[in-house]
């Protein structure tokens, strides 16, 4: 409590917890779990820039104006009604889905969701007080996102309204994607969605996690997602972050892969005032393959931070990682990618690259690829670049009649193609390319001013 007496900015959350817990009406067991997490959070506190992992991302602005704790009440009918149009638009963007579920401030919203009827191989269960049947905690829950070690995981565990459990059944092959939409209501509060995903043996699926907010909404989102893939399971997962420019999102995504499993994660960060993606991937058994692709596009004063940690825990595992960033105006990007190869993990094949495009003099990026290799028979490579649009290419396009704006857009399209073209659905490929270009079309190009 020393922290508190010195004015721990998170003290208000700790004070507000009992009222929140009372509103939820959890089982004593669950309540005890939340309290332990809250105590851990009290000890850990908000990470400061003195911590190596948070050196480039300063949460002080957050501390100055701490968002209040969540109320625990489900979204009101009026809010559900207002969200309808926005949800419909996002549903259209993706197209048909085998399951589409909407969560507002972490609360599952049945009226906005479409769950599959009958046996489809995919199940969405919620561990919530209002659940009809009491559910036991899913296997592995909290093992990857530790409420003991990580402040935001602890915060999430204390304040999430429910644990959403998504399971792809053994051998299931879904033709259509699963689309989960996490909408922040803009009530100015802390919002802690929690997701637990299991891909059972030999399951194959495509999953889209859409993080959105109501227009101009203000929230602090602390999301936690754990993904477990069993033997020969394959999951192609797309994370899209397009929250308002008043939203702070700390996204913790942790994965563990079994033998010969295949995991693809595309992380597209377009919105948010400050976004921190903490992605940890453990290749826990032979033959596991991981493919990480990321794209972050920052304008204005956006601060977009991607921290990835790939842990080659066993031999014969493969990882490919490519992150690209476009930063303009005064936006700042951070990329830190760690590849860790354990001492007995031989025959590892791992590549990592981070490329950045700075479109304005005020934009900046800090990129730090990092290798920690304790085995000797491994193939690892990494690299990063920071540059501007190629002047030679711009001139080439303009000499063919394209305006400067068209030429820039074309080169930008080329830069993001590697990421956008790798998305699993045609609808997403075109939608995301357009969203990126649309976003960048609003950016000011100071170098164009004062031209004859």
């Amino acid at each position, binding site marked *: 409590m020393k922290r508190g007496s010195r004015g721990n900015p998170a003290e208000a959350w700790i004070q507000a917890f009992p009222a929140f817990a009372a509103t939820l009406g959890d089982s004593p067991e669950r309540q005890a779990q939340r309290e332990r997490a809250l105590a851990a959070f009290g000890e850990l506190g908000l990470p400061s820039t003195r911590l190596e992992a948070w050196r480039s991302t300063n949460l002080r602005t957050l501390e100055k104006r701490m968002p209040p704790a969540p109320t625990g009440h489900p979204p009101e009918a009026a809010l559900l009604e207002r969200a309808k149009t926005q949800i419909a638009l996002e549903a259209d963007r993706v197209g048909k889905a085998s399951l589409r579920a909407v969560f507002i401030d972490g609360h599952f919203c049945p009226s906005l969701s479409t769950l599959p009827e009958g046996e489809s191989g995919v199940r969405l269960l919620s561990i919530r007080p209002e659940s009809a049947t009491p559910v036991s905690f899913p296997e592995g829950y909290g093992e990857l996102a530790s409420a003991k070690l990580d402040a935001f995981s602890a915060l999430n565990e204390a304040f999430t309204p429910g644990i959403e459990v998504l399971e792809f059944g053994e051998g299931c092959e879904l033709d259509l994607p699963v689309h989960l939409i996490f909408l922040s209501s803009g009530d100015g509060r802390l919002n802690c969605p929690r997701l637990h995903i299991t891909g059972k043996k030999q399951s194959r699926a495509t999953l889209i996690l859409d993080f959105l907010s109501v227009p101009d909404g203000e929230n602090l989102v602390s999301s936690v997602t754990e993904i477990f893939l069993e033997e020969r399971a394959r999951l192609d997962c797309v994370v899209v972050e397009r929250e308002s420019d008043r939203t702070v999102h700390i996204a913790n995504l942790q994965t563990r892969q079994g033998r010969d499993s295949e995991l693809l994660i595309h992380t597209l960060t377009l919105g948010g005032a400050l976004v921190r993606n903490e992605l940890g991937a453990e290749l826990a058994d032979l033959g596991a393959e991981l493919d990480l692709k990321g794209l972050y596009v920052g304008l204005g004063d956006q601060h977009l931070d991607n921290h990835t940690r790939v842990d080659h825990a066993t031999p014969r595992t493969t990882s490919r990682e490519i992150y690209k960033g476009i930063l303009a105006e005064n936006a700042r990007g951070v990329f830190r990618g760690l590849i860790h190869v354990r001492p007995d993990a031989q025959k590892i094949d791992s590549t990592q690259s981070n490329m950045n495009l700075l479109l304005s003099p005020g934009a900046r990026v800090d990129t730090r690829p990092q290798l920690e290799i304790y085995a000797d028979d491994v193939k690892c490579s990494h690299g990063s670049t920071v540059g501007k649009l190629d002047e*030679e290419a711009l001139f080439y*396009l303009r000499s*063919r*009649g394209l305006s*400067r704006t*068209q030429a820039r857009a074309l080169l930008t399209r080329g*830069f993001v193609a590697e990421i956008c073209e790798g998305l699993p659905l045609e609808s997403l490929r075109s939608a995301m390319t357009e969203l990126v270009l649309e976003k960048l079309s609003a950016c000011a190009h100071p170098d164009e001013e004062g031209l*004859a």
Partner: protein
Amino acid sequence: MLDIQNLHASAGDTPIIKGIDLHIGAGEIHAIMGPNGSGKSTLSNILAGRPGYSVTEGEINYGGKNLLAMEPETRAREGVFLAFQYPVEIPGVGNSYFLKTSVNAIRTHNGLDELDAMDFLALCEEKMKRVEMPNDLMSRSINEGFSGGEKKRNEVLQMLLLEPKLCILDETDSGLDIDALRVVADGVNSLRSPERAMLVITHYQRLLDYIVPDRIHVLADGKIVRSGGRELAGELEEKGYGWIGKAE
């Protein structure tokens, strides 16, 4: 069509062009020959509007307009086309998407309707045959992984599609084998017309066996030191560029 008067220009702070006068009328093909470093490519770059050069003296009149006041894209839309010596590779942008954008930018400028995908494809197929370009080069990224010959064919394809009024070929023959040279030259020759002017820049006389010019100018140290008919090419071939310097 093109009237260059007393042109002086620098690349950075280094003077390269030191007083060029050149007049090219509609329907004419002029060749500029000269040793490396004589300013041939600088001249073509200045005509196309490449950044990095400054004109310190003189003027360039194109079709009655001040060419130097125009942005590169305006020059292109007004009919100036530079076939690059080193066409740029642009990963991630489809060649066909680029060509369609280009054709439509120029059509729009000339008050024509944009071509839709189908019309463009039909137009493209016809022109591609002329430069013997394989279909897959259209679906690939702009010039990415193209051989030297394929890049030059792509340049000529663009020329055929855009139908410029003034074609500038900057060492289009460099790096081409004899078959590719013939294909490229055939493409260029098919554009010969009374309304169109061409400026062919080359180090070797070989290209001029295929694209026969009306006039040849020899450039040395930023100045035209000799002008003549097509027979001048033979003379240069025989004696090299050395004698020109001596004649000065």
